[in-house]
């Protein structure tokens, strides 16, 4: 056999180039569905609605708490606070795999609720509500001030 002539090898070379190009393309393309999934999945994964639920509960509950204590004298705000806090903590943990906790006014003498609020101005006293939520992926902490009508100041 004569020595093989290698002049045509550029065609093979082109073949390789195209093949490599396709590999590159495939890698890029394979990322695209992942991006799409994360858009919808991350929406589902982010516990927006749960946090809004807890937050909304505390905001509406807080303003009603003083009335509640008048209606049911045997359960003052402190008892209610503890009841709700523990309900929230246990049920979040067991059903949503999340740590959910809150406190109303900083802890003082083992009590959470200050009748006089944490802060005050001429018109309102403010109860400071610290919310904490953590489901392992998303961690959320917030301090919000809940005004309570108190014209005497």
């Amino acid at each position, binding site marked *: *056999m004569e020595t093989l002539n290698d002049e045509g090898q550029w065609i093979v070379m082109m073949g*390789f180039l195209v*093949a490599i190009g396709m590999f590159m393309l495939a890698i890029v393309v394979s990322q695209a569905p992942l991006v799409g999934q994360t858009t919808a999945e991350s929406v589902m994964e982010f516990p927006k*609605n749960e946090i809004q639920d807890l937050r*909304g*509960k505390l905001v509406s509950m807080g303003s009603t708490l003083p009335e509640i204590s008048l209606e049911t004298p045997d359960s003052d705000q402190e008892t209610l606070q503890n009841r709700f806090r523990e309900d929230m903590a246990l049920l979040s943990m*067991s059903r949503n795999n999340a740590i959910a906790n809150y406190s109303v006014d900083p802890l003082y003498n083992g009590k959470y609720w200050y009748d006089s609020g944490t802060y005050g101005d001429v018109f309102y006293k403010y109860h400071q509500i610290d919310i904490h939520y953590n489901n392992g992926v998303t961690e959320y902490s917030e301090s919000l001030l809940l005004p309570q009508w108190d014209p005497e100041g």
Partner: protein
Amino acid sequence: MVMNDEGQLYTIEGITAGVIMLVTAFTIFNSGLVYTPGDAHISDMQIQQLGYDALQMMDTPADSSPLYESPLAKMIQGNHGDQFKIEFNDYLKKHTGTTEIVDSLEFNATVFNRDGDTPHSYQFSNSTMYETSQLTREPAISVTRYVWITGRPFASGYDTGNQLVLLEVLIWRR
């Protein structure tokens, strides 16, 4: 004498290049890449948001009465699962008329409450086709909402007094 193979030089290389490209192409596109349809999770996301919205609507009193007097709280307190079924269904299929709504959502609602350190639960309500749609259903989406009630829920033996219970609703497309 050897056969004259000079004339086949380019042909062989052309075939080689072609085979390389085709094999690569088929390897990559036909077997290697299994992608999920892009919208697999999107309808899930819509159902989840709709479910949360529906629960929130039911837990919002129409006037400024306290939260424990929301329609949802009253239903749980009075164990009116049938009423919940009707209202929740109404919310799920509500639409503006812009698009066609396929009314094929089924659900199953469970109430969880705390007794000491253990969660208790009971089935609160479910949709009409709940049983029959179990076989062919798509994966369910879970939505939850805390509900403030002033007494113990329906089942006896639970704590009395003000408490939060967790309403969990599983929603799926039949």
